[in-house]
């Protein structure tokens, strides 16, 4: 692979995803507003919010430790690395070999552990409560995620996303039953991991029901901005992972400059569709009881494992 073009692709993708992540969030919120008969804040609102937050003076609890201050940056770093690894536009990414899907899951776990620790740092009841729930969701979502990715990796005999995309994207279209299972499981994990309904309610105003929000109640100004941005990056990362595995069409091959615009267009279309779908899901269903969440994610886990078994029993 031509190194120069690789680096160009890498930089291009990292910057692009970094910039469109808030737009993604804005789009989801806009769709949700429309479905609630509201005119909505417009897709650019997240940028305004970030801009404002960076401008504000941070407020920090007296007993906040360095870990608390470092976490937003670590979080941001993890998520940016994640979107740098997932082949979004093209498969020629110098960073891609740094982490295969397993390492990717590990990366998300790292981020989750740090944000939970930060939630417990100040020692308020909501922070600890949020950390507990977050870890509860996390420890269930993580294996489910791994199983989904394994199923995908079994078909291409590789856990490296680039290889997966290359094998799946550029071969004649085949429907694998195992992938169907995996796709459903992945969707469930996506909802859980990104604190969306039915697991968590991103727009809740009730401390007692919060999961993700509760951990970041103490954050303000630039720290909050980074966390919000990281959250939108995470959402985008998950959605693009989903694309890479389940609908990799349009992603350009290594160093394929002509494919780039097509890839970009395809990406935008896919993201728009995904955002609208997410908003629709969130409008249709209510948040489930906290102890239904294990059932929900347990189902995801079983579906994924089932997918893997079907692969072994039917597809080999």
């Amino acid at each position, binding site marked *: 692979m031509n190194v120069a073009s690789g680096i160009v692709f890498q930089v291009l993708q990292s910057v692009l995803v970094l910039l469109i992540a808030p737009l993604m969030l804005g789009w989801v919120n806009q769709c949700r507003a429309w479905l609630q008969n509201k005119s909505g804040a417009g897709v650019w609102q997240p940028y305004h919010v970030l801009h404002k937050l960076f401008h504000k003076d941070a407020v920090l609890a007296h007993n906040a430790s360095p870990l608390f201050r470092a976490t937003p940056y670590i979080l941001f770093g993890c998520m940016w690395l994640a979107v740098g690894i997932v082949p979004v536009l093209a498969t020629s990414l110098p960073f891609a*070999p740094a982490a295969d899907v397993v390492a990717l899951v590990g990366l998300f776990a790292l981020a989750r552990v740090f944000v939970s620790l930060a939630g417990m740092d100040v020692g308020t009841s909501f922070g600890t409560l949020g950390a507990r729930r977050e870890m509860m969701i996390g420890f269930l979502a993580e294996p489910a995620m791994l199983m989904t990715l394994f199923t995908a990796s079994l078909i291409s005999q590789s856990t490296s996303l680039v290889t997966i995309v290359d094998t799946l994207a550029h071969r004649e279209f085949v429907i694998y039953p195992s992938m169907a299972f995996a796709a459903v499981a992945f969707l469930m994990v996506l909802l859980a991991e990104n604190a969306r309904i039915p697991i968590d309610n991103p727009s809740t105003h009730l401390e007692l029901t919060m999961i993700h929000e509760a951990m970041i109640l103490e954050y303000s100004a630039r720290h909050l901005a980074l966390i919000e941005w990281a959250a939108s990056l995470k959402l985008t990362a998950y959605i693009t992972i989903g694309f890479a595995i389940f609908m990799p069409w349009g992603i350009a091959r290594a160093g394929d400059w002509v494919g780039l615009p097509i890839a970009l267009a395809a990406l935008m279309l896919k993201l728009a569709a995904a955002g609208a779908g997410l908003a629709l899901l969130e409008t249709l269903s209510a948040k489930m009881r906290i102890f239904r969440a294990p059932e929900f994610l347990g189902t995801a886990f079983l579906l994924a494992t089932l997918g893997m078994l079907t692969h072994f029993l039917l597809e080999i």
Partner: protein
Amino acid sequence: MEFSALQPIEAAVTLSVIWIGLGTIGLAGMRAPRFITGVVFPAGALVSLALAVTGLWAIGAPTSSAILPAGLPDLPFHVRLDALSGFFLLLLGGVSFGVSLFAAGYFRDTEPATLGLLTLQYHVFLASMAFVLIADDAYLFMVTWESMALSSYFLVTTEHHSETNRRAGFIYLLIAHIGALGILLCFGVLHGGHGDYTFAALRAADLKGYWATVAFLLAFFGFGAKAGMLPLHVWLPEAHPAAPSPVSALMSGVMLKTAIYGMVRVIFDLIGNIRWEWGLTVLLFGAATSLFGVLFALMQHDLKRLLAYHSVENIGIILIGIGLAMVFIGSGLPVAGALALIAGLYHTLNHAVFKGLLFLGAGAILKSTGLRNLNEMGGLIRYMPHTALYFLVGALAISALPPLNGFVSEWLTFQASLQAPQLASSVVRSLVPIVAAVLALSGALTGMCFVKVYGIAFLGQHRHEVAVKPREASGWERAGMLWLAIACLALGLLPVFMIGEINKVSLALTGTGLSSEALASGWLWLAPTSGVQASYSPVVFLLVIAAVFGLTFLLVRHFYHGRLRRADPWDCGFPAQTSRMQDSADAFGQPIRQIFAPAFLIQREIPRADDPQPVFTQSVKDRHWRAIYLPIAYFTEFLSGHVGKLQQGRISVYLLYSFVTLIALLVFAQ
């Protein structure tokens, strides 16, 4: 020139003897505690370092063996140092270096009499472990095995005035000897009644029919008992916390690994021609062990007990690796087998390092606050920042988070399990991924558990009103933890080197190593099979995150500002916030209690709604006690009615039994 003549084995023996010497010096010099803590332990640490170097050297060097001028008449001790022993010596030396440094600071306030004995037992313990690793005949192996058990027993019961500690010690020794008997019988079977008891002979002996399987089962459960494998784990959470923290670190970090060593030595080396059914057995027991271990760890609020249960879990993960190796080798896939074996051994090393570190951290906390109960800790990061940092490294490592070492070995295990499609039998093929799922689950649960530990012990507000502010650990102690923390980082960031070494072990042991392309990929990229299939680069990982960290920090400062105001934590406008308003350890475990309720034996009393003084009590117990051990206990009681003469319940007697059996077998063999 003189040195070049020196064989690794000689170095190893010498160093172990020096250890014993140091121990006796310690006993002699118990009048001068400063001397013991200031000189003896550091010296022991240096010996450890030397031993580690020897081990590393031995992995590369050709196998060297010797016959000791000691032992019974015409039953000399054979010792041998091959790559496998070398690897474990490296582990022993590397971990005990940090632990001895820590001990130098930790034991400063122990009263002289205890200290003297403790020093002796401590170093004898180390030496006997070293000998276990280099023993080359069943006789020496058993003797050192027993002395290892005995010395560690005395260490466990150092605070012998506490009833629980004595009970812990008793259970420990009991199960240790059930295990020892298993091992003994295994040697007996391998010996098959002819030849002598050198491993060479045992290796040569070919077993017909089911005898091989019998030998395997005996070895598996014999060593499993020592390793704390389900369902023989119950002694572990009792014994390890009871010991002084450095000793806990050694027991969890190193002693369990001698059991792994024995298992690998006997199954891969002595028995040979492995069957995949055996592998499956190991695999399933490993999976069960890891899951149960972590579930029970989540229920604990005693920090050291919690860590002990995590040892159970990690032994499970190691067994998964070894089991996978056996499955692959047994079904004629040596390369995949090598990968799995390397994963298992690498995790053995990693667990030794980070578990040692965590136990030392727990020791530091215990020393400065006198607390083991998480529900009373909190906010320690503000009093002991260094310890907090080292403990964080250990916690991230054990939670299998990149870019630290725990993740590497789990990653390798996953990669190994993804070789499953090559397997012939579709049943095994689909069982392996399920085990991988269990591994993933227990990995995630570990993460949760250590968020609980770290968040509750080090973060938040201090729950326990201590008279004096908790003090930061002393220099020696910090040095010990720092060493192990660095080891965690090094093993995590540059796994390729160590994997290269372990690859040699696998080559020496099974005759196959990793594929050539896997080794070709360079120090930066870890690609166990091939770059196309899977790759991972911790360094890039760390660098990118660090770079983004720094960059964002600077950019935010540059384009905006760094203004900051300190204020009270947000309290819903309700000023009277107390430290009682944060999750307790039990609260943090509650979701798990709820979800995995069947796994536990829970008794709880929930107050009525209209209760004026509501009180809540609950206890979570290990089912195995009721299921397995109590029946046995009743049975033994019933027996003891008849053979009361034998059943004195005194340790010496049990030792006597096992030695008698040993001697008897040997004599019978002559």
